[in-house]
């Protein structure tokens, strides 16, 4: 023990330099993790988090009792995760390969710059852009097609709308990663394939796609952990938090945000949060273990 302390004293400069980040993680990440005990408590704002009485699994019973709400938002969360991940990855890879194949490099650089820009626009601003398209009187879509659909009242269109907005927002950014991988492929591989008589498609299938696989795995793994989390801004801001749309747009995160604002249903919400955190962590551990089994070098840890 004494020896270890001496060793640390010898590195006191490093300890001091690491301290600020250590403390910020402690107070702003780890303490809130402990706050998950809220799921087992009957929260009373006056008593605070720690003094509130325990109530066992009552919150989870509440969760099961209002199955309808809970199931729907969980289903929405998972459904959007699947759509966004599948469509996003497909489009990102398609754009990356197309850009890589393009002979006009200068033009490609410019297009790439433009494609990334939307990720830097916050959803609070995106919300106004979407409104300009969808507003029932002044919106571009209704004007263009001469329709008078009240988009903000019709839940059935929103899975499509949100997917389009999400793809517009994130695809360019996502494609950059794949492009950087493609730029690193040894050109000799293509030359060899050409000599063996492979045409363009065969080259893409047998050289390009396999070299993208590690990056795809890493991106998937990273995203699986947040399967229960959503891009809150997309679901809260872009939908204008419109109650009539909840059946297709309410996800766990936006539900929690609403609950905080209305100061309501803390028990239910706490149980849902607990579920969200635990499921996410289990999923990422499981999928990492699976990848480790198949391709150890692609695992995250």
């Amino acid at each position, binding site marked *: 023990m004494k020896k270890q302390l001496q060793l640390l004293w010898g590195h006191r400069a490093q300890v001091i330099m690491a301290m600020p980040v250590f403390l910020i993680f402690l107070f702003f990440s780890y303490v809130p993790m402990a*706050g998950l005990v809220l799921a087992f408590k009957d929260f009373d704002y006056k008593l605070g*988090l720690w003094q509130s009485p325990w109530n066992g699994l009552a919150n989870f019973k509440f969760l099961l009792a209002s199955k309808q709400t809970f199931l729907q938002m969980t289903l929405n969360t998972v459904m959007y995760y699947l759509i966004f991940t599948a469509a996003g990855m497909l489009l990102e890879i398609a754009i990356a390969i197309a850009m890589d194949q393009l002979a006009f490099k200068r033009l490609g650089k410019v297009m790439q710059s433009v494609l990334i820009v939307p990720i830097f626009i*916050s959803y609070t601003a995106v919300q106004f*852009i979407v409104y300009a398209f969808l507003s029932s009187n002044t919106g571009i879509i*209704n004007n263009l097609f001469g329709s008078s659909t009240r988009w903000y009242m019709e839940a059935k269109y929103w899975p499509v709308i949100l997917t389009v907005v999400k793809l517009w927002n994130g695809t360019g950014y996502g494609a950059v990663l794949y492009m950087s991988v493609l730029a690193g492929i040894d050109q000799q591989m293509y030359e060899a394939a050409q000599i063996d008589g492979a045409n363009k498609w065969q080259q893409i299938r047998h050289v390009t796609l396999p070299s993208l696989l590690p990056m795809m795995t890493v991106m998937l793994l990273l995203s699986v952990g947040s399967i229960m989390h959503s891009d809150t801004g997309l679901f809260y801001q872009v939908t204008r938090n419109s109650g009539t749309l909840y059946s297709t747009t309410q996800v766990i995160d936006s539900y929690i945000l609403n609950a905080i604002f209305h100061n309501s249903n803390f028990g239910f919400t706490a149980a849902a949060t607990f579920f969200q955190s635990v499921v996410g*962590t289990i999923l990422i551990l499981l999928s990492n273990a699976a990848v480790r089994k198949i391709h150890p070098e692609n695992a995250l840890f």
Partner: protein
Amino acid sequence: MHRQNIPAARPRLKRKSGSGQFILATILLLVTVLCALPIELVFAAAFSDEEMLTSQGFMFFPSRFSLDGFNAVLRYGKQLFISYGVTIFVTVSGTVLGLIIMAMFAHTLTAKSFPLRHFLTIWAMIPMLFSGGQLSTYIIYTSMYNLRDNLLVLILPLCVSTMNIIILRTYIHTSIPKELTDSARIDGAGEYRTFFQIVLPLMKPSLAAVGFMMATAYWNDWQNALLFITSNNKKPLQLLLINIQKSIETLLSTRNIPSSALVAMQGSIPQYSATMATVVMVIGPIMIVYPFFQKYFIKGLTIGSVKG
């Protein structure tokens, strides 16, 4: 990824720039235009004539231009300038603070002899896998830390992130020669001096990349503001945008507008164009800064994806 492993750049194969290339270019160009149009729309609407907007709706290429929207916002939008100040303050202080402390942290992780290296690595990794969720975060920030309506709540939680630490650590690992820091130590430079005078200046490209990502995260953060900020003089731009969605009058309190100006604006506030003008003011700075940082930013993204 070690530098020497990257194959030397070879001249690309000569590709046939036949019709296939032109079709490819056309498709990509189309995608790019589709991607840019929504942004163009914001600018078009901000410079549009209000009357035309209400009667004919939003247009990509408005037929009548006007500066009324900007005029109203710039002349009577006192809140906009307060919010600008808040956002700039939060963005700059948060980014600088975060960069310094994360760089220090990353630096200690690269010293092989440091006994806490593994513990601290794991300490930084866990928050990426597990989080307490919004609700407990909200309750702890407000009831334990008393951070409600305090600008610190906009700065501190966002100033460190696992991903950024990984990027910085990988950069130090791959791009700053060990011999340099070792020889500095042999020459008698203390740990602080080695870091601040040798390592930190050499980290510039990675700091630019991480710094830009952090700055946009701060600039665009609306959730913390919405949850915790209540008073007007601490309202950042994103919260202002959220309020404007409910009513443009938050921005232009009608009381402040002299009646002569109201008459000139035909008795009403140019609602649509003023809103879009505000959106332009909010997203504008990022668009202006982005080209300068793009090169670093793309590099940073790439480093971050290679696990260190």
